[in-house]
């Protein structure tokens, strides 16, 4: 999850998010260099005593300030296209989960496991135990195995919602009547937090997404317990 006054991205929990962070760092360095250059030009122009009222054009500098930005932009574009198409790859998921958005909670269905399904409501602030996070905790977490490709099918039952988990680099709209698909792999065990990212009514800010990534044996134990309880 994010820590207070955080400006940058959260630590990556999936290979795709690692690639996104890598690309973001590169783009940001180019932005920094351009900003430093502009700042230098501003200072140089302000401190210059030279004036010329008769400058009409200059072919050389026109070529320079056309070619250089084109080169920089094309370099960023090529790298971004690579990761754009990488995001759309589907790599033989081991597990499929349906995430349905409601006003104002998420429900998860593990149809690979005898129609296991449950709702995930936010834990109200007054019911939090010490160490839990305000507006982020849910009563039932979506548990998934680590190092396994997971497919999540996202839709909604009423209005638009959006299923987002920043540390996985996932944000998919939940649209009533439409099934959207995303796949990801979680690199490491842990608890990943997200929040609904499409305005959906009064409690839009109070329907978090909590993913618990566990080793496979723990996941199997969890599914057995949940099937006994909910099916």
């Amino acid at each position, binding site marked *: 999850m994010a*820590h*207070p*006054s*955080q*400006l*940058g991205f959260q630590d990556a929990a999936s*290979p795709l998010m*690692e690639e996104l962070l*890598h690309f973001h*760092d*590169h783009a*940001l*360095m180019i*932005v*920094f*260099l351009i*900003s*430093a*250059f502009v*700042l*230098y030009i501003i200072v*140089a122009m302000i401190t210059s005593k030279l004036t010329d009222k008769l400058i009409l054009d200059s072919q050389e500098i026109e070529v320079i300030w056309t070619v250089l930005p084109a080169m920089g932009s094309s370099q960023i574009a090529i790298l971004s296209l690579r990761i754009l198409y990488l995001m759309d790859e589907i790599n033989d998921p081991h597990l499929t989960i349906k995430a349905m958005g409601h006003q104002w909670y998420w429900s998860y269905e593990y149809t690979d496991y005898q129609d296991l399904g449950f709702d995930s409501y936010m834990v109200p602030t007054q019911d939090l135990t010490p160490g839990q996070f305000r507006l982020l905790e849910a009563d039932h977490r979506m548990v998934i195995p680590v*190092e396994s490709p997971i497919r999540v099918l996202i839709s909604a039952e009423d209005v638009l919602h959006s299923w987002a988990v920043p540390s996985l680099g996932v944000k998919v709209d939940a649209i009533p009547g439409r099934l959207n698909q995303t796949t990801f792999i979680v690199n490491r065990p842990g608890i990943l937090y997200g929040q609904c990212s499409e305005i959906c009514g009064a409690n839009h800010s109070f329907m978090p997404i909590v993913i618990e990534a566990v080793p496979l044996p723990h996941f199997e134990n969890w599914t057995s317990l949940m099937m006994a309880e909910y099916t």
Partner: protein
Amino acid sequence: MAGEEQENNNTKGFRLLGILDVQNTPCARDAILHGAGGSLAAGLLHFLATSRVKRSFDVGFAGFMLTTLGSWFYCRMNNAKLRVQQRIIQTGIKNKIVYEGTVLDPTNKPGAETPSGPS
């Protein structure tokens, strides 16, 4: 206590021009330091050769841009190659654990044939 220290470290990242987090971005610190060194060297050498102050500043800044970019690209390419190798090694370790002792184990050598009895 350790969590608070980690939180303090995370929030203390120094951002150049408010944009670039030099501490937490891989290769950024090295690139900026190399750029600063390159800028100093280029500007100083130009001034020593021409005694033109303003133009030396311009040359120094150009040196900063080029050295920073060059160092950044070199470091990021090496970083990317290392990450690819790291992923290959991780996948190899995981596959070894998963497939060890099964027919899919690549290190599994076929056992010696047992001699047949007299016909």
